[in-house]
């Protein structure tokens, strides 16, 4: 990757706070979070349970709005977007990998990988070749025509990652992508994500509890009680 790209800011959050008013006592899940994420980064958001990791990722991903503060993604202030514009923005700019239920059960692995490209109205040929080459890269060529129920948890998550990747988003958000995997599969998935980060230059932002996963990150942002308490870049 060229250095100019490397330095380009993809996500910038400014003083975002989030307060939930669902119970009698308001819960402040995030407090003044300032975060800048540059193109090509491989970042783990870590912290104890309830520290606000999911809340932060949801807000960065445009699935939720902050109570105050702003999020600028590649120059667009997403807190100003309307609901329908936001869905469209997500489709074209953000890749998602969830903890589970990522895939559409009635579609094959290949169709799942093509799905977002399809929503983006990409050409059929492009879709097919990209899906197949990505499946090959993660060693799932022989599973291309198999439905998710016949895949292992680790394989499903790999399909979910390349589905996100296939749609060429600005970055991929993954909230505890390894939480439902055994440690070997978790490590494999992380290795694969790291490889995609290197080879495709894809920016990954993921949250985790797992120390072995944290060890693979190049930058680790630690949250506690909704605040960033440390932000370290490793070599």
């Amino acid at each position, binding site marked *: 990757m060229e250095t100019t790209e490397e330095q380009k800011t993809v996500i910038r959050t400014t003083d975002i706070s989030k307060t939930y008013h669902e119970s009698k006592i308001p819960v402040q899940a995030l407090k003044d979070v300032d975060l800048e994420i540059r193109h090509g980064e491989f970042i783990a958001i870590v912290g104890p349970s309830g520290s606000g990791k999911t809340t932060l990722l949801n807000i960065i991903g445009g699935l939720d709005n902050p109570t105050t503060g702003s999020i600028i993604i590649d120059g667009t202030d997403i807190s100003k977007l309307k609901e329908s514009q936001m869905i469209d923005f997500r489709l074209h700019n953000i890749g998602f990998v969830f903890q589970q239920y990522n895939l559409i059960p009635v579609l094959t692995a290949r169709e799942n990988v093509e*799905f977002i490209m399809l929503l983006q109205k990409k050409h059929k040929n492009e879709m097919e070749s990209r899906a197949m080459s990505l499946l090959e890269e993660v060693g799932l060529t022989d599973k291309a025509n198999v439905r998710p129920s016949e895949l292992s948890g680790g394989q499903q998550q790999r399909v979910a990652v390349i589905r996100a990747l296939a749609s060429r988003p600005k970055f991929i958000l993954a909230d505890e992508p390894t939480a439902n995997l055994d440690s070997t599969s978790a490590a494999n998935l992380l290795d694969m994500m790291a490889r995609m980060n290197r080879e495709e230059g894809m920016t990954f932002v993921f949250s985790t509890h797992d120390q072995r996963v944290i060890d693979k990150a190049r930058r680790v942002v630690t949250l506690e009680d909704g605040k960033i308490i440390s932000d370290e870049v490793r070599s």
Partner: protein
Amino acid sequence: MLITIAWRNVWRNWGRSLVVIGSIVIGIWALIFMLGFMNGFTISYVNGSIRNEVSHIQVHHPDFREDYDIEFNITDGVARTKEILKLPEVKAAAPRSIVNGMLSSPRKAGGARIMGIIPELEKEVTRHDSLLAEGVYFTGDQRNPVILGIDLAEDLRTEVGSKIILTFQNENHDLVAGAFRVTGLLNTTSPIINKSRAYVRMEDLNRILGTDDDVHEIAVYLNDPEQVPVVMDELQPRFDGMDIESWRSISPDLELFLSMTDSFLWILVGIIMVALVFGIINTMLMAVLERYRELGMLMAVGMNRIRVFLMIVIETLFLSLVGGPIGVLAGFLTMHWLGIQGIDLSAYSEGLREFGYSSILYPYVADKTYLIASSGVIITAILGALYPAYKAIRLNPIEALHTV
């Protein structure tokens, strides 16, 4: 792809889908069958009335139908009937001389309409020769034969071979009478004929009346009922000043009956649609709730509301597109088979005959019924999909994804 997903989703819970498809099939089939049955009744009633009583077209003196007076006649009726018979569309035509009179047997007396007919012409129009319960149709060489409706004969406590006296007014409003011998009893599907008609030869009646070739009614039976307006137009100039009426205006009850069947169609469609709509809402709501997380994921990754909505609607539509044709086909085959076989109602026909039905029923539905049934089901499916689809697009992706 949306279509692929929707289609595969249909078979995801195939047991549940089959229940819905099954109810659509049964709904359509029941609709077609019930209508066919209704239509069969209506048509047999209407055709029976036209065939044995009303015929397609009748010609009268304009005042005759209001006030059955002997002077309101069609002059030269017999000769003019023969002219009508030359029209290619006309299958049969019969002149009738009509009086209202009194019939007395040695035991009892009662009123009836006395029809003076020319048997050879009349039997081609009304086929009464085939509807005799007893006796013969003006074939014997007995003097003054009369054929009575079967119930009329019973009222008069008379029977074939007995004598009765017919009394009525002649042209000068003088009472005249003649002795007739009962030679046959008519059992038609028409209660009016059975209860209050007496048929005599026109020559016998007119001799007593003192008229000769004048008649009060000419009944015309056509090869094709569709030709009624054409033939009416042709008759108009020939019978200037006379009333030429079709069976629809002669017997408005038949028309009413037909239109009732039509309204019945819509009522049935409505009932079946309402029943189906609830079944579909229920099923699709279950399908949506079951897939809450998946739908949440789809919306999170960028599937917009229109697409989610369409996916649910298309899925529902598929249910009806599978069930619809099967139901229509089942209905069509049933109708086709029963249309040939008929349904034998002779076990119940005593009661039915009272109301003017014949005992073998041939169910029938118009082609448009299949179309109405199919589009009804498709509309139902769409209506039934709206609420579940609305539910689906209202969901909040974050909440949906966190539902465990």
